[in-house]
């Protein structure tokens, strides 16, 4: 849909494929070397692509016994110095929460794709939903910070997959890519970027030489923590307990405080580096839509449509959901008459938007929760009601 500027279209690189396949292609582009997963609708195509493609690239695919072991396995593989990924959907993502917290605590780069379907529970396996946004942030016990990305079209799915790997490496953290059934199963055009067109972040490895004390959990001045692969000279400890700069358990309140602060700060202090979004007609908009994922397609459809009729609608499409880009939202909402958050849940991003602005009473929700894609008409109707025009 949106071209990657760096890449010219040729008959070679124009593809027509499912969003899930695009995600797999993005991961290969980013350099994924190990994938472990367990099939689940609507994410299975990612695993299937990985099983097909990885061996061709010298990488490895494993089908594990469940989702728990899938995430555990990629964490293990990440420690040997590889870029790793798993993919699942709601029920599997719920099962992964314990190991996700481990990856947060032990600061292990990895990418977890959750192709959202209708929840809760088994819910609607083959229908779209966006109910896992807050779970991505809060599903893990204990307070922590996390990066979660999303995308609404195939060109962006590709790019956000690559970004997910880049952020995972930059911030030494698990990154969640929240796709949805609609975009995952949708087929549309995508232009595969040429190698080098999107910059890749490599694993940052320590320069400390053998025999010199290496501190796996001591951030550099720029906040990054160089790693050392298992199998290299430096031997250190990795644990999910609070730990000191060598990775050994500690209950010292000062060390505990330092670590939890670090885990938050490395993400939240870099919110401007991590925030990804697209702005459509924001400059002169008097009604703002905020949306993401499949819902953003409907929002954009409405915006384009109404713009043609002269209505000043604008759309802020979020691609970074966590850390929540509150300042950008605040800025965007400042000069509009009102804002409609368009999403397919009971208002998870809505709440964050309200927390971000000065006038929460001017933020409204257009949502749909019945497993069907919200339509441009649904949004228009809500807009009319807000404007006092009824439906």
């Amino acid at each position, binding site marked *: 849909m949106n071209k990657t500027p760096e890449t010219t279209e040729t008959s070679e690189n124009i593809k027509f494929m499912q969003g899930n396949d695009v995600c797999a292609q993005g991961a290969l582009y980013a350099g994924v070397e190990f994938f472990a997963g367990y099939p689940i609708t609507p994410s299975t195509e990612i695993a299937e692509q990985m099983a097909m493609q990885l061996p061709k690239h010298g990488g490895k695919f494993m089908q594990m016994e469940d989702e728990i072991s899938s995430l555990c*396995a990629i964490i293990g593989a990440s420690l040997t110095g590889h870029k*790793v990924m798993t993919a699942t959907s709601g029920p599997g993502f719920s099962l992964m929460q314990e190991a996700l917290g481990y990856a947060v605590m032990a600061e292990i780069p990895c990418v977890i794709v959750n192709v959202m379907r209708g929840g809760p529970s088994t819910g609607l396996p083959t229908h779209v939903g966006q109910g896992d946004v807050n779970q991505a942030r809060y599903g893990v016990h204990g307070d922590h910070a996390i990066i979660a990305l999303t995308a609404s079209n195939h060109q962006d799915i590709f790019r956000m997959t690559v970004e997910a790997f880049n952020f995972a490496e930059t911030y030494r953290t698990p990154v969640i890519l929240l796709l949805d059934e609609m975009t995952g199963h949708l087929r549309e055009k995508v232009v595969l970027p040429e190698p080098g067109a999107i910059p890749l972040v490599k694993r940052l490895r320590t320069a400390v030489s053998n025999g010199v004390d290496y501190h796996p959990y001591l951030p550099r001045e720029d906040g990054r923590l160089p790693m050392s692969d298992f199998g290299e000279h430096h031997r250190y400890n990795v644990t*999910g307990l609070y730990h000191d700069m060598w990775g050994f358990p500690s209950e010292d309140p000062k060390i505990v405080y330092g670590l939890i602060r670090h885990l938050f700060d490395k993400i939240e202090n870099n919110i401007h580096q991590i925030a990804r979004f697209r702005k459509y007609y924001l400059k002169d908009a008097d009604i703002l839509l905020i949306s993401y994922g499949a819902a953003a397609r409907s929002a954009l459809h409405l915006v384009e449509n109404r713009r043609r009729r002269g209505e000043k609608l604008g759309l802020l499409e979020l691609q970074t959901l966590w850390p929540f880009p509150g300042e950008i939202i605040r800025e965007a909402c400042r000069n509009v008459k009102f804002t409609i958050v368009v999403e397919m849940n009971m208002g998870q991003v809505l709440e964050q938007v309200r927390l971000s602005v000065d006038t929460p009473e001017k933020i409204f929700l257009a949502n749909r929760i019945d497993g069907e894609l919200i339509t441009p008409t649904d949004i228009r109707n809500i807009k009319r009601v807000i404007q006092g025009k009824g439906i």
Partner: protein
Amino acid sequence: MAVKDYIRQRFFPHMWCPGCGHGTILNALLRAVETLGLKKQDIVMVSGIGCSARISGYVDFHSMHTLHGRALAFATGVKMSKPELNVIVPMGDGDALAIGGNHFIHAARRNIEMTAIVMNNRIYGMTGGQFSPLSAHGSMGTTAPYGNIDHDFDVVELATAAGATFVARTTTYHVHELSDFIAQAISHKGFSVLEVLSQCPTHYGRRNRVGGAVDILKTYKNNTVRIGSDKKQENPDLIERGVFVKKELSEYCREYDRLIAREHREAE
């Protein structure tokens, strides 16, 4: 290299209770590694959560202290992504066979070259003495105050049925056998399981009125026999020690490498 060169001495004395069998397993493991002449950076130890799991903090290898029950799943990722490493996975009985039972049988099924050591004290030590899936029928635990009505797994049989290609059992009393079996297990080209009966005097011993560490070790001495011993015929309650399974079967990492060799085309 001396045995003490394999440990992180600054953490000693370790956190285990006086007489805890887990320390003896650490002791024997270090000797096995020394005998095999392995380099420290070629070994990864992956453990779960439990008293047993604390072993990974004491060895000067690459070490991962992971989640309760999940050690083999993490270890699978380590081994698969870097097959040249020696991966040793010590686990508590609860860790390996309660919450971790599924990863245990699946690792056995796949036959990935890793060494699983079940440090079997027949109790949840870390959480204070609840019965485990390896606690005998009738034994006592804080959650079995009237005697355990669960039946216990036979680790050797379960590992064998699940497909492990090396399966052995010994105790912390039989220390020569112990380090020998550990060395054999590490050397085995496939998934190896070693069950070690290990005393928890603090919880198991006390609650089951078998006494302290010394007393439990005596039961290991008296109530176990080498496989095939005649004594077992006379007294079927005796527990057999020895190597039960040792067989060749295609190893998973190697199979995957062959698959890659077949499918990997340069710069596709």
